[in-house]
């Protein structure tokens, strides 16, 4: 299944991830955590397929276990004592659960970030922040250009050095290392000098004189307006719920959290829709596509 959320406007993408990642860091309430981690899990599989699934299982599960084990060894709060450690400190049920909860929070955030990495590419980021931080986003876009350029340049220099027998493949280990450093050194000199030339060229073309205009590849369409409205109103709703202490949870000394009263269920539903928005969008677009194909 191809992802469709990434084709939305960068504002929609960014607002979504800010809210979801922020909430995932903030809420330690089990119901919210289950909603968030399942949303992140499903979405990462939509985005990366089998690779995403393997990553989640192979890296996240051991991480969850390791981090979960650290907490009860150091945290001795809690009312339900399971047994005593060798140094006389109690090993409590609450601290075990808290360990699992905090490590779940960690892997949820990492999973959301892995989705973020697929969706929020550098050009989207630069597009979003180009107005607010123009010089820095110019630096960022230059760095993104320079990295592959330098890699190519190193190959060119290395080929030239090969002609005079000074490549990294010539001679013994010490000579190879010396040649390698020499290639790097040539590359750095070239990078600095050509950088200055670029700067002079920028200046000659009027950099810094007037307000710069920016090429934009993104249109803010009706669907973007709808999506951003839904995402932001859901986010505000969840924030209101959290101010009203609905999302609160207490782990020590005993575990207490808000259960399933009407307003709670509404907040769960709201959070569910928020976390699953990209999944819903993808399913919706796929269905639409199937429907359109079937009509042909």
């Amino acid at each position, binding site marked *: 299944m191809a992802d469709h959320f990434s084709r939305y406007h960068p504002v929609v993408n960014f607002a979504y991830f800010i809210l979801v990642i922020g909430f995932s860091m903030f809420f330690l309430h089990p119901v919210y955590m289950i909603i968030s981690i399942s949303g992140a899990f499903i979405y990462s599989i939509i985005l990366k397929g089998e690779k995403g699934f393997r990553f989640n299982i192979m890296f996240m599960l051991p991480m969850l276990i390791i981090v979960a084990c650290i907490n009860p060894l150091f945290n001795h709060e809690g009312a339900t004592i399971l047994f005593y450690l060798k140094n006389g400190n109690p090993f409590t049920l609450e601290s075990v659960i808290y360990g699992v909860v905090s490590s779940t929070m960690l892997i949820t955030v990492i999973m959301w970030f*892995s989705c973020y990495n697929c969706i929020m590419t550098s050009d989207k980021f630069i597009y979003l922040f180009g107005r607010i931080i*123009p010089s820095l986003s110019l630096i960022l876009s230059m760095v993104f250009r320079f990295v592959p350029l330098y890699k190519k340049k190193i190959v060119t220099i290395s080929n030239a050095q090969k002609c005079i027998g000074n490549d990294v493949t010539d001679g013994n280990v010490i000579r190879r290392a010396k040649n390698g450093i020499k290639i*790097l050194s040539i590359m750095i000199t070239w990078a600095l000098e050509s*950088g200055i030339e670029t700067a002079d060229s920028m200046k000659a073309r009027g950099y810094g004189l007037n307000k710069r205009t920016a090429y934009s590849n993104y249109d803010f369409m009706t669907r973007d307006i709808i999506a951003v409205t839904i995402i932001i109103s859901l986010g505000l709703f969840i924030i209101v719920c959290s101010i009203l202490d609905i999302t609160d949870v207490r782990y020590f000394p005993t575990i207490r959290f808000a259960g399933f009263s009407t307003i709670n269920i509404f907040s769960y539903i709201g959070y569910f829709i928020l976390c699953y928005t990209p999944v819903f969008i993808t399913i919706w677009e796929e269905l639409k596509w199937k429907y359109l194909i079937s009509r042909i």
Partner: protein
Amino acid sequence: MEEKYGTTQKSNKLTKRTIVSSIIILILIPITILFGVFVLDDRKYVFISILIILYTMIPFLMVFEGRKPQAREIVIIAVLSAIAVAGRGAFFMIPQFKPVVAIVIISGVCFGGEAGFLVGAVSGFVSNFFFGQGPWTVWQMFCFGIIGFLAGILFRKGILRRNKIKLLLYGLLSTFFIYGGIIDIGSMMMATGKFDFRVLLTYYATGFWFNVIHAASTVFFLFILSDTMIEKLERIKIKYGLIESGNN
């Protein structure tokens, strides 16, 4: 080398901007931490810690944006960051073995604390587009940046000189204590969600060898790169009249 390329050592005084930045780091951060402890009931550590770190970086970025940097300045920072990012990419298979800190220190020494900070923060941010963004990005940006910033200040103060031994020592200590020390606090906060000194000690213990490798790689890269790179940067500064253009 100092006599030969000693053009930057004109005054030992700190510029106004450096003082302002120092005040922000030394006074505003503690206030923010206290705000987290007393107003937000000392909960939500992860969130507060990330906010604080972002908050500390904003003044640098705003000052930089505010003074409408010249094209040359922008390009030089971009070139240095790109070298750091490409270097990190070249050694991606060895964990923690990265030249970023070395290049950041050299940038700080040659172009001042602000440039050092920017090269560090930009390298941390951009390289994570290749290695994966996460809550750690903010911490890495901060650690790299602060090392570059301190390198610039110490150099201006005359404590750090273009003397290889001192540079290597600064690289070793700053990577091990500043980078390692802060990054481990970050990973603890992310993992357990709160600050606990005993847990922090286990993180320091488990992270010890990673920090050793990282510090060793910084020393290694400073050893091979510092002389040639400082020479090149100084040459560029003289050739194109870039001398401390950012500090007027």
